[in-house]
């Protein structure tokens, strides 16, 4: 699964730490999600989408083989 979290952060100009604070997780979590090392829960994905004002499908995309 790939994601556009980094792009979305750049659009609103916030750091990983700031995003983590806004949605109530650690910076490690945000970093791992961006690098594709960790798949967030539905709740966390929805919180991220709500924060950026986008849909979950705009932030997270399935890849071949998923």
């Amino acid at each position, binding site marked *: 699964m790939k994601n556009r979290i980094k792009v979305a952060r750049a659009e609103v100009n916030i750091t990983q730490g700031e995003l983590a604070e806004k949605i109530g997780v*650690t910076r490690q979590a945000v970093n791992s999600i961006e690098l594709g090392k960790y798949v967030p829960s539905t709740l*966390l994905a929805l919180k991220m989408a709500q924060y950026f004002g986008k849909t979950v499908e705009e932030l997270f995309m399935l890849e071949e083989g998923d």
Partner: protein
Amino acid sequence: MKNTKFLLPSGYKKSGWWIFGITVVLIILHFIFQSQCDFSLNNLRELFGMERLEGKGDLFSGFLSSSFGPNDDLLLTFIGILLIVAGIFIGFSRNKEDDEFIEQLRYESLILSLYINSGIVLFCLIFVWGLPFLWVMMINIFSILYVFIICFYLRLYLNKRSIRYEKQD
């Protein structure tokens, strides 16, 4: 989002490390002074003149006398209890920053520790024989708990280190 239902409050972690430190000191003292001190039941009986240790008296004293032989080393038992309590406090108390990612790390570390501990026991079963195997069995009581603690905190540290050098853009 985070499921910390079975975890202890984060304050227990500090207590756990204190208990662990005291236990390590007791272990070192026990091995240094083993020949000179005898913390067996017989010795305690002499020290405190406690008739209850001979099975006389109430239900509690009866339990004591049936659980321990007269020459069992009570200090080792006490050390064992402290090691388990310390391990549980350190390994299963909440972190200051706990989220679903840390929870996932904890879960994976638990599984990894099971694999590692099983591997160690398997190796010892094949290559350790006779009386030394008694040490293997004794250490195996605590090893899974402490292997889990090492796995979890190592993964936490490696994760923190990997993001430390990343530009926070």
